[in-house]
Structures are given as structure tokens and as C-alpha cells.
């Protein structure tokens, strides 16, 4: 029992200091691995980025299905207890000052560090991309500013902030990386499966983290403990613990339950396991749901997508969760499961109020079902101050069926304009049955601009939010209609 850190087994409890709420970050620092830094404690800056061995899952390489994938995650968010039995690598585990890892070498010689505080986190995020099995030189499209000639995807670093360098030398370091050496032990490690997630119990009756071994066990526990807090990627939970002092008596880890991790493309629908991470969904779908594909690069950062799950994004019921407008436009349905069995609800009916849903305390979201075939005209527009890793002030997802020049079906999902994510029903009504034309778009855009009840806050003014709603539709016409 414990965590394998930089190849060495370490006990989970060090000097009695690890509680069920202790983050992976604090645990690693307690072990003396102070290269892992706290910059924000809410998954925004990446100074605490570490690599974790995760199941490889599908990708475009031939060999990865049964192997592992070095996956960069924020250490500040998950409880250390959630990593029991897992393998973690920090910057200290990659190289030493006298024997630098290739990533560390490129970062050092190119001026990729100034104050150095964000650097170990950058190194871990960069190393995970360095080891990505399907990273191939030249895979990037021409003129793509976000891929190097070595196939390095700059989005791998989208969750890391640097206040000193201005990023150019870090990008140069990333784009200068070659392939891992064949003898590189961390590369060799990927040939073997990732460690399974075994049953875990840390803590006592006042505070505990429990990872049930099976779905049945999890459901039985939920039936017994309505106060239990569900934790998957912990990207929301960790923020609540770190910034708002949440200390639940019982946290239940559900992110590795196999029943929640399926991905099935059937004739009539796509079923996506609620506990798949967004990165896994992105890779698994490989563009088969275009609207989800356009969402993914805009959803938080790679570090967050490597941990956050679709189920978690929906269950928190945030009005500014980015996946909800998209899944609303896709007319998705949720599969809820409890010890009594399963039920299916339309996502449009799921949100009942601000951060309130139909989910009963004894239920889990098991899967999301997206019906097929999908509408041919789709777009996802996220309005935010920053393109990488920001929270929407407004998000608009549009899915239109156009037959013989007439809009036959319109679904528009909105985020950021009300206490819950919502469908723009009035706009949909204006669009349906009308010719797909500039006039229709103008009429619908005016209606869309008055949907919801946007507010003024630090992210945007209400007037801007309203303006962005209408303009989203005008832009769809401009880009896909003409």
C-alpha cells in the first residue's frame, strides 16, 4: 500500500501528516520533493504538474492499447489518497542537475527558466508530451502555430503559466525535442499496463476517502451515506477543498470504475462513460462527434482535461461548464445508476436550479448518450478573456439540420447566461422551418440575444454577453452558411 514516486514505493501516510484531504501536492512536498510547487492551488497555473502512469487507451499509435501513457496532471487537486497504488513522476524523477533529462536540457539551455518556480511543472507537462506514443514529426498541418515540426502539441502546455519568460523559449524547447531514447526507462515503462486502481480506504469516521472496488460496492455505499461526496478527477472537488475549506466526512472515488469508463459507438447513439477523462473522450472519439471535437481544445487546459470527466462537468451543474451547451445541442441523455437500477434522463431536464440536478444522492452518472445521426451544421463558440485555459463568460453550441435550404431542426445550447445551462428554445423556434438565409439568421440572432438573463460580473458585462449570443449565430452563418 502506498504510492510509487519516481520509481520508489513510498508509504501513503508520512509521519501521520496525510489526511483524506491532503492533496497529492502537499504529500509529495512532505516527502521532500519540493520541486512540486504550489502556485494557485486551483489547477490554473500548472506549477504542481506531475506525470502519472495511466492506461494508454486508444490513440493513433499501434501498440498503446494495453500499455500506459504518462499523463500530466495538477498535483494540487486530487487527494493523495486517490493515488494509492499509482505511479507518479516529478521533475526530480526525470533527471538530476548533472544528468539532465532531454526535456530539462532543452529548457535549461534555451533560457526556458528565469525565476524557475513554474519550471518543474512545465518540465513535467512537456515530458508527458515528449513521451506521447503517437507524437510524430510532421503530423501538424501546415501553418498550424500550435504544433512543432516534431509533432509537439502546444496544448500540452496550455495549463502551465509562466510570469517571466513570455513563453517563446519554452515553446522553442518543446519544438526542439527529439524522440525518447530506446533505453529510456520511462519510455520502456509505457509498454506495460498502468497500475490498476485498487480498493482504498484512508481516514476514519470523521473524514475518509474511499475508493470502492466495484460499482456495486460504490452504489451500496452511496445508498448508505447520502452525505458522501463523489470524486472523479477532483478538478472541482480539489478547488472546493483548497479554496473554500470543504472537508467532507466521506469522499468516494469513482473515476476508475470500469462501468463508468466505456466508449461505444453504436448505430443509433454514442455512449460515453461518465468517468472517462476529457482527454480520453477526445482520443477515443477521434473526431467522430465534431461538436465535441471543437469543444475539447477550448475546455480548460490539457492538465485539467487529463483529469476532469464529462460526468463531473455535468454533475457539478455549473452554469459555465463548457461541455453542457455542447451536449444540450446534441440532445444528449444521461444514464443514472443506483442500487435500484438504471434510468435515462434528457440532459435538458437534468438541471433543476443553480448547481442543482435531478441526480439523487444514491445515484451516479454512469454514461452520456449522444443520439445519431448528428446535425451537419455545428459550431461551439466560447467567449473568454483568454483562449487557453479560461472560464467562459458565454458559451454557445449550435446544431442545425438543413434540408433543401430549410432549417428542419435547430438545437442551441447556452452557458453563462442563466443560473443553469439552458437550451435557447425561442431561438430554435425561430430557426426551424425557415430558409437557411441571412434574413433568418438576423431574426434568430436578435431573439438569441435576448435569451437567458445574463449578468455583469468580473468576466464580462451583461451587455457583452447578450451581444455575444446573437453574434455567435451570425458567425455560424458567415463561416458555414454563405
Amino acid at each position, binding site marked *: 500500500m502506498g504510492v510509487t514516486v519516481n520509481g520508489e514505493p513510498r508509504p501513503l501516510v508520512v509521519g501521520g501528516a496525510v489526511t483524506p484531504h491532503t492533496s497529492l501536492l502537499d504529500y509529495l512536498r*512532505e516527502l521532500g520533493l519540493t520541486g512540486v510547487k504550489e502556485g494557485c*492551488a486551483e489547477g490554473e497555473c500548472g506549477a504542481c504538474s506531475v506525470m502519472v502512469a495511466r492506461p494508454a487507451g486508444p490513440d493513433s499509435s499501434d501498440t498503446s492499447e494495453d500499455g500506459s501513457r504518462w499523463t500530466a496532471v495538477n498535483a494540487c487537486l486530487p487527494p493523495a489518497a486517490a493515488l494509492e497504488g499509482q505511479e507518479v513522476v516529478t521533475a526530480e524523477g526525470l*533527471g538530476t542537475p548533472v544528468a539532465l533529462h532531454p526535456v530539462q536540457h532543452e529548457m535549461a539551455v534555451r533560457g526556458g527558466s528565469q*525565476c524557475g518556480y513554474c519550471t518543474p511543472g512545465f518540465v513535467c507537462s512537456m515530458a508527458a508530451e515528449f513521451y506521447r506514443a503517437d507524437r510524430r514529426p510532421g503530423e501538424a498541418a501546415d501553418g498550424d502555430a500550435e504544433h512543432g515540426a516534431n509533432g509537439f502539441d502546444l496544448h500540452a502546455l496550455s495549463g502551465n503559466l509562466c510570469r517571466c519568460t513570455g513563453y*517563446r523559449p519554452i515553446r522553442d524547447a518543446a519544438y526542439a525535442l527529439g524522440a525518447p531514447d530506446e533505453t529510456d526507462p520511462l519510455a520502456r515503462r509505457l509498454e506495460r499496463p498502468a497500475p490498476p486502481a485498487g480498493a482504498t480506504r484512508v481516514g476514519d469516521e470523521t473524514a475518509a476517502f474511499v475508493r470502492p472496488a466495484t460499482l456495486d460496492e460504490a452504489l451500496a455505499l452511496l445508498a448508505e451515506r447520502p452525505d458522501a461526496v463523489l470524486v472523479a478527477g477532483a478538478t472541482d472537488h480539489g478547488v472546493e477543498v483548497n479554496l473554500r475549506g470543504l472537508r467532507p466526512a466521506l469522499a468516494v472515488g469513482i473515476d476508475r470504475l470500469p462501468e463508468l469508463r466505456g466508449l461505444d459507438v453504436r448505430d443509433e447513439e454514442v455512449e460515453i462513460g461518465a468517468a472517462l477523462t476529457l482527454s480520453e473522450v477526445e482520443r477515443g472519439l477521434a473526431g467522430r462527434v465534431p461538436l465535441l471535437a471543437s469543444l475539447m481544445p477550448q475546455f480548460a487546459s490539457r492538465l485539467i482535461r487529463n483529469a476532469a470527466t464529462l460526468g463531473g462537468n455535468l454533475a457539478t451543474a455549473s452554469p459555465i461548464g463548457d461541455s453542457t451547451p455542447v451536449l444540450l445541442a446534441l440532445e444528449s441523455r444521461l444514464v443514472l445508476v443506483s442500487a435500484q437500477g438504471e434510468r435515462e434522463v434528457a440532459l435538458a431536464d437534468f438541471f433543476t436550479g443553480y448547481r442543482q440536478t435531478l441526480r439523487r444522492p444514491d445515484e451516479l452518472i454512469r454514461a452520456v448518450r449522444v443520439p445519431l445521426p448528428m446535425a451537419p451544421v455545428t459550431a461551439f463558440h466560447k467567449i473568454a478573456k483568454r*483562449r487557453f485555459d479560461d472560464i467562459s463568460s458565454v458559451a454557445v453550441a449550435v446544431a442545425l439540420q438543413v434540408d433543401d435550404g430549410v432549417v428542419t431542426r435547430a438545437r442551441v445550447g447556452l452557458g453563462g447566461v442563466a443560473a443553469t445551462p439552458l437550451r435557447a428554445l425561442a431561438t430554435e423556434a425561430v430557426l426551424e422551418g425557415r430558409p437557411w438565409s441571412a434574413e433568418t439568421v438576423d431574426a434568430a440572432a436578435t431573439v438569441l440575444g435576448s435569451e437567458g438573463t445574463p449578468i455583469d*460580473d468580473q468576466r464580462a458585462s451583461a451587455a457583452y454577453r447578450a451581444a455575444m449570443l446573437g453574434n455567435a449565430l451570425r458567425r455560424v452563418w458567415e463561416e458555414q452558411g454563405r
Partner: protein
Amino acid sequence: MTTDLSRRPDGAVVGESMPHESAALHVTGHALYTDDLVAGRTDVLHAHPVTAPHAHARVTSLDPAPALDVPGVVRVLTAADVPGVNDSGVKHDEPLFPDVVMFHGQAVAWVLGETLEAARRGALAVEVAYEPLPAVLTLAEAIDAEAFQGGQPTVARGDVESGLAQATHVFSGELDLAGQEHFYLETHASLAAVDEGGQVFVQSSTQHPTETQEIVAHVLGLRSHEVTVQCLRMGGGFGGKEMQPHGFAAVAALGAVLTRRPVRVRLTRNQDITMTGKRHGFHAQWRAGFDAEGRLLALDATLTSDGGWSLDLSEPVLARALCHVDNAYWIPHVRVHGRVAHTHKTSQTAFRGFGGPQGMLVIEDVIGRCAPLMGLDPREVRRRSFYAEGHDTPYGQPVRHPERLEAAWGQLHDEADLERRLADVAAFNDAHDHRKRGLAITPVKFGISFNFTAFNQAGALVHVYKDGSVLINHGGTEMGQGLHTKMLQVAATALGLPLELVRLAPTRTDKVPNTSATAASAGADLNGGAVKDACEQIRRRLVEFDAGRGLEWHELVSAAYFARVQLWAAGFYRTEGLHWDSTAMRGHPFKYFSYGVAAAEVEVDGFTGAYTTRRVDIVHDVGDSLSPLVDLGQVEGGFVQGAGWLTLEDLRWDTSDGPHRGRLSTQAASTYKLPSFSEMPVDFRVSLLERAHEDGVVYGSKAVGEPPLMLAFCVREALRQAAASFGPEGVSVDLASPATPEAVFWALSAARDARPADPADAHVVEGAPGVEPDQPPPDAPELHPRSEQAPAGPR
């Protein structure tokens, strides 16, 4: 002419391009920062603040007793515990434990616990009662209420009224420009202990160890020789650790003295943003006159900075703003008045540029808004107004090397292929209705030295050991800017040794005393002078001892030791030729000016106002670079940080009358956004100005820390021009600061309709005599002659 200080020997180690001296430690996670020293220790107590939920309130009672019932809580620190002076600043206007809360989130007490969790729970248990008081929050409220603090200086030259009367074009307007959160990745941290010698030893993430030492001493009622402060390195400073660390260090030291255990203070990000000072936001009112060719003739302006709850560094920041409102431009008639608003916010403080950016933004905004109204390209207005040989600044300092502005301007036009690209931008804009590009070029002139002459001194301590190895200490701190790298190169050059023989030890007040803050970009100039002095003393002795024998270094050192030659030296440097009268706001405060020119090309989406920076070209003057890779990093990093300030970073306070009035609503990384990879220029090209030797400065170099930040003005001006392209020819665009996508959207929407972005905003008013800026009352206080340091006050 080349002085001894600037002459560079053959084979010099300075000038070699090399990585940061700690790069290998940074990338492997082995570089230690203050709070890393706590890991794995069980003897350390952790401190957590008790923070006030009001912007302004009297503390009517404070009961720590309930906290002491929380398991693991060891002690609660309150005002009653302070043996010395209850003040965390140098002006005695910053109580460490206040009885009147002056901003939302201010700490009124600190709880010490065996764990941070215990301290946090203890802080929640402390019972505090408040009597809320009215709070002044915005600059507009402060100006209406005439809530000002400190001196109200004026820089003046010529006769503004006659200048405006002679002008062909007169415009007046106003500008609100935003502050900026430092967001150094390492938050404030201190670790204090009483050591085995009985002295108070404080490890602190501080840019100003000497002042941290002085504040800790006065809080504890000790003398400076009883307190030592060490700074290993900082995870970023940017000015935010010049004045702000002192109080946190004092809390840690007070706790250590009272409990006889090491005490750690480390702020979370939210605490750091909530509790510590930021770049000052400013309000400016201005009238400007231009001649028929568009040259600046007269500027009349009043700048009001948002100082927050205490003076801190607000007066010198304001002074630098007034001394930089000219930027690179000769303005014959100038009157610029300044004042510091007193608001119930964090105490705004130093931030890279130190008021210079705010002053310079005013004139760049004036030009950007007025040029279209004169039917001129702003690029032409800028170039025609450049300083030339023989010109003085408004405060009376001759402008040395103004030809470097023209040289950099020309070099940039060539390297950036500017004329062709301007034509491309125009063609793109003609061909696209919903996307527009802008390409703007702006200059920078920035004065180097502390305005306050006394601060322009530095010390160093250099040891040569018997085995020939060299250890250097100097008074500057390392915050990522590469100062230590440069100092190693200076020492190796001055001693004529390979770099491997020289090592640098962390900054400590018991090695080099009475140091100035590592600030004002002057760290390398000052400490480099001191290190060089110490090394040359040693070298002179050794050369004399060698007497032409040509002994190899190790042999020479060993022989010299046995001949009783002193192998170590203390070095000292002071910048010559400086004088400054802060009452008259005249003098020669700067050793020299740094110059730079930058061009940015942006593309704006008309549907949303979102934009990308397609390409940035920079030509910057660093003299003869001491360390080119370090300097390049400073130029690029400063530019992106400046672009963040101007376009993205958006501090918002709750200014409503609701229950959270005064609360900073962007107090987290999730709400306060700094540039990420998505904001960096897609194509980013930096060159150093050619033929740029700077006489009279260490090895011919120039300072580099702050000036590049202001190169980012070109991004803002490019956005303005792109927004204007959505409208008719000659439209003047008001662009809010920061120019967030939303601000750009409103600007381009207004340009389309050829009207002001927000009718409530004061748009540019055309015509003489214009709207006169507020003038100081006859009894307006002057700047104290030593306003950068302690005034005469109770000690």
C-alpha cells in the same frame, strides 16, 4: 571615450551567452525557495491570518480564546504582542496589527499552529467584532471626496497656455488605466527562527533584504545587528516584493521570538492577491497641443494614482510617472501635476516600470486618439516628435543618445519589413469584413537609476580562497532576472578567471549591509560596479605581488597567501553625476536612458473582439550586453508582461454598496488571467540595438529589467488601429485599458458607428483651450525631500 568602468577586456566572460546560473537546478526541481525549507520539518509552526470582511471598519473587539481551543493551535499573535513598533512600513502608516481595518481582507491577527490546517481552523475561530465605516474605493470617488495622501508634485517647463495657444490642433480628454497584480508564481513567504547565536534569522522572499531586516528589527524592538535576513532566490518579484514582504517577515519573526520555534508564513494565492499591493491604476486628464505637422507642442495633464490604504511607494511611483509622461517625445511646453488617491484597497506598490508605464501610456494614448483627428498616421506623429540632440526632458535632464531612437526605429523598419507589411495589412482589411488587422510601432525611452539619489549605491564581498576558488556576495537579490548570472560573469571577467572558479552565495544582510532594493532595473549596474570594484582590489594586489612573474592563478593565490596578501575585498559602487530635487521636481535623476522600439501586428475578430498577436518585432538597447541570453529573456518576458497589463489582466473590486463592498472579485488564478501560451506572439523576433556601448556603466552595458515592459504599447495601439479599421477613415478610437476582448469589441462597434465606445466616457474634445485638468490647490503638499525613504517620524 571609454571609462575604466565600461571598458571590456579581451576574452571577457561578460558578453557570453549563457543559461541562467541556476537553470539546471530549476529544471530538476532542486532550486530551493524560502518555503521549500519547511518540507519534512516537524518543529515549524505555521501561520494563518485572521482577515477582515470589511473594506473599512473599526475593530471593536478581538477575542483569540476560542482559537486556542482548536487542537494544534499554539498561539494567536495580536497587537498586544508587539514589543517594538506596530508598523510594517517605513512611513509608520501601516500598522501590522491594525485597530482600524483599511481594506477588505486585511489581517487583524495571525494564528500559529502545529499544522497549517490547525492554524486555518484557529483563524476561523478567532472572534472579531467590527464597526463598519464608509469606504472610498474608486478613483472617481476619491477625486470627488478629495481623498489624497502624500505630496502633490508638478513637473513643468515652458508655458503651457501659450503652447496651447500656438498650437494648430488642441485636444483634451481623459483616460482610466488599470493596475496590475504581480502574480509572481511564488507567493510571499518567510521563515523565521531564533538561531543558536541568539539572533533572529529570517529567510524571506524579498527584493529588499535590508529593509525587511529594518522592519523586523523595529517591530521586535531590536537593533539591526540582531536580525539577519537571507533571500535564497525568489520565484518572481516584479516589484511586488520590494516593500510588501516586510510585514509577513515581521509576523514570522515575532512568532519565532515569542514561541522560540521556527515560524513559517506563506500566503496562498488568494491571500497574496487579496492582501498585497499591486501596480497603481491611474486616472489622467489632459490637454495636448500639436503643430501643423503633428508635432507635440504642449501637454497639460493631471495624473491621479490609486494609492490604496497607505503611502508605501506611491510617491516615488508618482514621481517616476511624471518623469516619463514625455516618453520619447520633445514637448516644449509641459505641465504635469500628480496626486495620490487614498482608497480602501491594498496598498499599491512598485511594479516593473514603477509608474513609468502609467505616465508613458498617457502620451501614447493621446497620440493614438488624436492622430486620426489630425488626418495623420500615428506612426508619423510619433517619429516627428522624437527627442533630438540638445533637447532636455521636462525636468531638466539633457537627453543623451537621442539618435538611438532614430537608429532603433530605422533598424526595426528594416528588420520587420514594415512598409510591405503595412500594405499587406491594408489589403487584408479591404478584403475582409469581419476580421481586421492592425500594425503599430511605438518607442520607449526609460530613465535608469533610482530617482532618490542616495539609493544609487551598492556593496559586494568577494573572497578568494587559498585553493583559488572564488566566492562572491553582493547586495542584490535574484528573482529570475539573471542578476546572479551577470554578477558571476562580471567577477570572472574582473578577475580574469574562467566562470567555473567563481561561485555565488545567497544574499544576506550580514554579508553586505545597507543595501538598496533590487529594483529600478539597476541591480546589475549597481552591484556589478561593486563586484567589479572588489575583484579589482584583489587583482591589483595580486598583480603587484606577482611583479611580472606570470604565475598561474592557483600558484599565485597560494604564494600570495603565504606572503600575507589580503585575498578578499569589500567592494562599493555609487552612480556618479546624479542629483534630484524632489520639491522642485528638477535635476539629473538618471544615469542614462534605455531605448527601444517595437512593432506588433494583431488580428481582431469583429464578432467577439477576440484577437491574436500575429507578429512582434523588437529592437532594444541594452548597451553592450553583459549576458545576451539573459537580456533576451528580460526583453521578451517584459514585453509579454506589459502586453498582459495592457490587454488582458483585469483587476475588479466590488464597488457596489452590497455586503461585499471593497472585496477584490478577481482574487484567484481562475478570475485574474495573465498571459498564457495563447497570448504569446505567434512570430516573436527580438534584436538588440547595434553599436550601443554605454560609457560609464559596468562593461558598457545597460539596464534591462523594466524598459521592455513598455514596448508592449504597440500591441494596444495595433488593437486600436484594427478596431478603427471596422469604421470609416479617420475615426478616433477610445480603447479601454485593459483592452480585453470585450473592450476591443466595444471599441470596434463604436468605430463602425463612428461614435465613442461608451457615451459616458469622456471622448476626445477638439478645440482650444480645451478642458483644463484639475489644478492643485495653493496649499497642496510638496513631496517630502526623502519621500522614497522614512520621513522624520517616531522610531
